[in-house]
């Protein structure tokens, strides 16, 4: 053993014996440090992202119909995968739940829909129509207030049109619009309103409302699921506004992120982003072009607020703005533009004034908990289906509040989802049967259709034709809709129907791989025709992010170490050439070739391990520092990858071991040729004179 110790001792002493060795060592040190830090970062991000994906929608694994054209991709936005439905979810749940490591099987299906809104004037006109209608009539003061609001809107539109006329090409504005606006702003028009409100409203709706170009449509991604099971299985989910959908009922929870981003008054949303940028992200308006752009938009786009204000609210707003800005300006649009002209010194104060004083005059959100949303979606067979669904509130995933990825989807009950996706629900079966009965239609099979239509008696007989009473159907329809909103479905009803897929939540996630294999075996044995995939695959391209990050890291490390390998190889060759006499001496006094080979290899490996250890320490120290300071999530995507506002990387044993392995392999590979070369040095070289 002593000669092994001698080898090590000689090698250790040789480590710092030449400048070349120090250069080699520093390359290895940097490479190792990069590997340790990068590896720990990627591992930590992998864990964080898995928490985000598993904890939001995916669960630990997903099952879906194996015959499907695509596989689930839960975070792909508008690219909805083509999945075949599971005809009866209850038949899937039972066998899967029988596995001892399965905590929950939650039915899920993703779809997208469009929510279309009228513009601001449409919304006020609708209120005015309701206030004037017999069934929903409101006090005269309310009607008067809405009327004056509409008059103010007409006046705003008139002034906008006048401006437009000055800059637009001749003929760009329909001359008829001026006449309509003149009529809508005339005292005579409003004097006659009380006598015939509905024809006046019709005129305003058809001739004036379309002149305001702020109608909007919102694209909504949603997961249709058993909401009760979902909230129990995904414990990061929390209701923010309103309440959870009552157990077993139809309803929807909007994602808080989408609610803020899409349903909020745009100026208020922009002000929020500015406030957040300055107070929590450490950005400044003076330097950040994105924030500067938000200010610019807020200054220019005051119309949404102006149109929302009725004359009384306008007066109040003018007073507030004059006080805040110390201005004598009376035009509310100009005052708002000045108010939103924020900089680093006044933004926080303006934000406070907006929410404390101006927001009470405005409707900050287009939808409030308790409102109904009309959602339109394409069914599986391609036609558009529309469903009214009650919004009970908003929700978010704890720790992922600011993530646009986790916050991209809203939640919907399974029945509404099935309606929108075009699946046959119990109500639809009942409705079809009622229509069949009402129309006196009888069922004819495809094979008998020709005979039934053209066969039998040669003469055409007139058959009795029942008349469907539209009013009965309509009122029946209303009743049915009311029933649907309050109806409580049993779990059995919910589960005995189609689902597009299901999330599987495990008791012990560390056994994911084995459990997935067992579950696939169960699916095959029970002939369920299902495929089991893990969360990473279910997340689609997003799940591959870590692979990409790992690929980049390994590629960068590979390049560093390839460069190191070439440099080390050259350096060791040079060092060997410089030591020919020393090696020759060792050979002359009795060292075998193998000893010389081992000596050069050991020296290089020891050099690698010494500096590698230095690099590992350096990398570990840096990782630990990062672990305590945290890396801030620069944007919404990073928020998701970091599973929160900051990533706190943990030192990964795998990275440390990997770094050592790579250093070992690189030094071995780079020293092999010089070592062989050294072992071939003839002992006679010892006799060479010093010069």
């Amino acid at each position, binding site marked *: 053993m*002593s*000669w092994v110790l*001698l080898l090590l*001792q*000689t090698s250790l*002493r*040789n480590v710092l*014996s030449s400048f070349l060795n120090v250069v080699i060592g520093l390359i290895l040190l940097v490479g190792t440090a990069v590997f340790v830090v990068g590896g720990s970062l990627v591992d930590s991000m992998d864990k964080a992202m898995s928490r985000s994906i598993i904890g939001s929608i995916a669960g630990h694994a997903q099952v879906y119909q194996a015959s499907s054209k695509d596989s689930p991709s839960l975070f792909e936005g508008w690219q909805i995968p083509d999945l075949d439905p599971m005809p009866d979810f209850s038949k899937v749940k039972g066998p899967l739940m029988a596995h001892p490591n399965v905590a929950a099987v939650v039915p899920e299906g993703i779809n997208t829909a469009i929510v279309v809104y009228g513009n601001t004037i449409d919304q006020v006109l609708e209120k005015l129509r309701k206030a004037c209608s017999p069934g929903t009539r409101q006090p005269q003061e309310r009607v008067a207030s809405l009327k004056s609001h509409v008059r103010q809107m007409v006046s705003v539109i008139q002034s906008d049109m006048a401006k437009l006329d000055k800059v637009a090409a001749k003929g760009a504005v329909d001359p008829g619009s001026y006449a309509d606006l003149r009529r809508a702003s005339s005292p005579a028009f409003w004097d006659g309103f009380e006598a015939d409100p509905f024809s006046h409203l019709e005129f305003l709706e058809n001739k004036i409302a379309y002149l305001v170009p702020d109608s909007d449509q919102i694209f909504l991604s949603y997961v249709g699921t058993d909401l009760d099971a979902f909230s129990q299985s995904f414990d990061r989910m929390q209701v923010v506004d309103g309440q959870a959908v009552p157990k077993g009922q139809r309803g929807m929870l909007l994602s808080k992120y989408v609610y803020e981003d899409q349903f909020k008054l745009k100026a208020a949303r922009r002000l929020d982003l500015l406030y957040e940028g300055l107070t929590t992200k450490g950005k400044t308006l003076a330097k950040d072009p994105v924030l500067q752009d938000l200010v610019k938009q807020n200054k220019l786009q005051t119309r949404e607020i102006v149109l929302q204000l009725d004359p009384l609210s306008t007066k109040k707003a003018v007073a507030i703005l004059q006080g805040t800005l110390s201005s004598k300006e009376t035009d509310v649009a100009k005052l708002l533009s000045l108010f939103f002209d924020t900089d680093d010194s006044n933004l926080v104060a303006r934000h406070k004034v907006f929410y404390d004083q101006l927001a009470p005059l405005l409707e900050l959100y287009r939808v409030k908990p308790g409102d109904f949303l009309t959602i339109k979606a394409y069914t599986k067979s391609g036609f558009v289906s529309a469903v009214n669904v009650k919004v009970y509130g908003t929700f978010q995933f704890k720790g992922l509040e600011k993530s646009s990825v986790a916050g991209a989807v809203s939640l919907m009950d399974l029945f509404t989802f099935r309606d929108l996706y075009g699946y046959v629900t119990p109500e639809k079966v009942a409705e079809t049967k009622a229509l069949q009965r009402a129309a006196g239609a009888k069922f004819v099979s495809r094979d008998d259709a020709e005979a039934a239509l053209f066969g039998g008696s040669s003469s055409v007989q007139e058959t009795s034709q029942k008349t469907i009473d539209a009013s009965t159907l309509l009122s029946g329809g209303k009743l049915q809709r009311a029933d649907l909103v309050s109806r409580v479905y049993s779990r059995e009803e919910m589960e005995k129907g189609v689902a597009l897929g299901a999330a599987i939540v495990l008791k012990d996630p560390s056994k994911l791989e084995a459990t997935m294999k067992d579950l696939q075996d169960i699916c095959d044995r029970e002939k369920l025709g299902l495929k089991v995939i893990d969360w990473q695959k279910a997340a689609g391209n997003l799940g591959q992010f870590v692979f990409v990050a790992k690929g980049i890291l390994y590629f960068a490390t590979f390049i560093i170490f390839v460069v190191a390998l070439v440099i080390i190889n050259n350096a060791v060759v040079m060092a060997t050439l410089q030591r020919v*006499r*020393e090696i020759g*001496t*060792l*050979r*002359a*006094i*009795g*060292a*075998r*070739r193998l*000893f010389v080979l081992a000596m050069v290899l050991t020296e290089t490996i020891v050099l690698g391990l010494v500096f590698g250890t230095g690099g590992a320490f350096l990398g570990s120290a840096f990782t630990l520092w990062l672990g305590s300071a945290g890396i801030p999530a620069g944007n919404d995507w990073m928020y998701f990858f970091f599973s929160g506002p900051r990533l706190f990387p943990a030192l990964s044993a795998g990275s440390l071991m990997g770094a050592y392995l790579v250093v070992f392999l690189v030094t071995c590979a780079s020293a092999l040729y010089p070592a062989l070369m050294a072992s071939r040095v*003839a*002992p*006679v070289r*010892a*006799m060479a*004179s*010093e010069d």
Partner: protein
Amino acid sequence: MAKNEEIVSIQGVHKDYPLDKVVVKALQGVDLIVRQGDFLSIVGPSGSGKTTLLNLIGCVDVATSGTVLIDGHDTKTLNDRQLTDLRLNTLGFIFQSFNLVPVLSVFQNVEFPLLLQRRFTQAERAKRVDGLLAKVGLDKHSKHRPSELSGGQRQRVAIARALVSRPKIVLADEPTANLDSVTGETIIDLMKHMNKVEKTTFIFSTHDAKVMGHANSVVRLADGRIDGRKTKAGKHG
């Protein structure tokens, strides 16, 4: 096997070196017998073949033709490993430039051949190395690095290293060439002392008249041939 006393037997040895398109004939038919306990000096002008002859005796090179028997072993018939083992166990080397391993201490440099032999325990090695260092007067320098020693001290370390494995022959190529005359004298005295005490055969090359005066046998080389041999007893080889 040679006679007991004949430790080196060289018969009709030629050594050629190809140099570009020319062949340099370094040795041309050399015959030489060295007996156990000789203190033999090989002398001659530069290029006469002294170092080549030492290389052949030291088994670091092989003859183009002729026979070289070292301790009864025909070096031509041995492979690299056998030659290495022969060097390790039978021969000791003292080099003109000392050739110590710079990163090892004096003790470790001397101990090195014993470690290669793998025959001795740590205690046995320590005893032998310490004993030799005391004999060459460097017992107080055992932890020093070669760079901390004078030229004479380094050569004494080299002598200790050459003797530590108790070889039958010690070869020294111009052992005093890099030393001043006084130190050179001391080194030769030390070698002679070791020759007497340890009965080790010393073969050394030199072109220093003073140094060759210490030899009990002097072989003169010229143009790759033995020009004559003188022994203190007056015999001519």
